[in-house]
């Protein structure tokens, strides 16, 4: 369980970092999505891993898991989801306007409409 979660976070972070360092908008956005998945799982794990434990008070239950990270993850998911939508829209606007989807500034006169 621990190995599974840890390696999932590690692999997603590594793949996300690789994609974030790419040249064009689409792989970078994919990379950011992967990074946010990784960080969501990481936040979840920050309250310690517990299988099948309840986060809210109930009768005849003695083992609980920490509910706070679950609330944090929920907030983080909503925010990252909205942010990804925003960056896709802005990226599309920039691409359609200039026919160029490089993330970095292009040297003047070689690419882009500017």
């Amino acid at each position, binding site marked *: 369980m621990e190995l599974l979660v840890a390696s999932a976070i590690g692999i997603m972070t590594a793949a996300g970092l690789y994609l974030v360092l790419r040249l064009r908008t689409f792989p970078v956005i994919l990379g*950011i999505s992967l990074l*946010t998945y990784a960080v969501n799982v990481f936040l979840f794990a920050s309250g310690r891993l517990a299988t099948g434990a309840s986060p809210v008070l109930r009768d005849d239950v003695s083992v609980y898991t920490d509910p706070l990270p679950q609330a944090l993850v929920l907030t983080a998911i909503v925010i*990252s989801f909205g942010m990804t939508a925003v960056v896709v829209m802005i990226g599309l606007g*920039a691409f359609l306007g200039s026919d160029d989807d490089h993330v970095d500034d292009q040297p003047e006169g070689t690419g882009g409409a500017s």
Partner: protein
Amino acid sequence: MIHWVIAPIVLPALLAPFIVLAARYHIGIQRAFSVAGVLALIVIGAGLAWDASDGSVQIYQLGDWAAPYGIILVADSLSTVMVLLTAVLALCVLLYAIGSEWDARGWHFHALFQFQLMGIMGAFLTGDLFNLFVFFEVLLIASYGLMIHSGGTARLQAGVQYVLFNLIGSTLFLFALGSIYAETGTLNMADLAARVALVDPAETVGIRVAAVLLLLVFAIKAALVPLHFWLPSSYAEAPAPVAALFAIMTKVGAYAIIRVYTLIFPPDVEITSGLYDMWLLPAALVSLVIGMTGVLAAKRLDRLVAFSIIGSMAMVMVSISLFTPAGIAAALYYIVHSTLAGAALFLIVDLVRTGRGNVDLTAQPPAAGAALTAALFFAAAIAMAGLPPLSGFLGKLLVLNAAFDSDMMVWVWVIVLSSSLISILGFARAGSVLFWKAHGVAPGAEDLVMPRPATLSYVAVGGLLGLLALHTVFAGQVHGYTTRIATGLFAPAPYMEAVLGTPGKLSTPNEEAH
């Protein structure tokens, strides 16, 4: 507990949807409500600052739940000063946006502006690290919309870079919060301060990683080299009033560093020793060199001002990274100065653009309204470069004075003084090309006659410069107050007592702390 503490967040949060829903097609009503809202913010901010000026700490428990389980807002002398500064800056920027009609060149300027204010105010007032993240996101989401206000390909491309960079920053913030929560089990700042001091000295790996990650996040916001790459393009391409408002956003990063690293990881805590003098101070000095060199090297006026923002943020960071009461006091004085001067410069860039159509640093026929614009540029450039008589000079003196006892004193003095010289050269070159050489160039037949900027625009810029003059005249009182704030920051017991000691719903009087 007074309810006014949450007013700077609730007021813009209610005003923004109202503007979208009720006044969508009426720019006049939008303007009226926006200005009224900002005026009310100034009054509330001044009231809170007055309340906190005796060193007392006002807290607000949301839903009356006591910390550390409930979310709390804290209005102490540091955060109320920043709230007041934001509100005053917002008024000048808003007047400029209305005068120059930037707000009518796209949709929802005023609504996004209010949301942006909500995020900034929240970031200053919150007493909880996760809420700091949430308010960072609120201000960033609004800033994405403002940054690409009125569109254009160049602006959208800069916007993509800006959004992507900040998304990575947000992800890093979440990683830092996750590590802190895993190590300490709390995200309330006052509670964290108590628990970090209890961390087992043999097992500090996790908390040290978290401290560095958090510092990286705030350094991205404060545009510290090597994390400054998002700033020049996005500030240069953003609409002028937006760029001027963004002058406070870099200060949010500086504020967060001051707050978190004096309260949670103070310099005498073993686990983070070396973080400030070995890493933060050299990085700040390098940013200072790069920012001021950028001022000299820039080919366009908007880029020049963007680099001067990096340089002046670096001055603030140099002063903060000394981590002495004198250093923080000088940094706070410089933060106020740098916010006002940076905003004024961005607005002046737009005055130049209105008057001659572009902001390239080449000799062109005189711009419309050049005389007044030149005078304002002269004053703002003097302030930003740190020449007497304006507050930049006093601010730099305070920083140099604070660095006098440090081990790095030689480096700080040499770099601050030489980079000031470079920035003076940069501003002098820009001013002479823009305004003096213009008289030697005859207007071509095909040159369009540009309109003179609106009077209200000049009033807004003049207001900012007037505030700078006041900041200079009352430097003694202001510095005395920032010294009191800084001394209070290094003795956080009243803050922690106010946050953790106030009982809330369901807490009985005899178990008040936890």
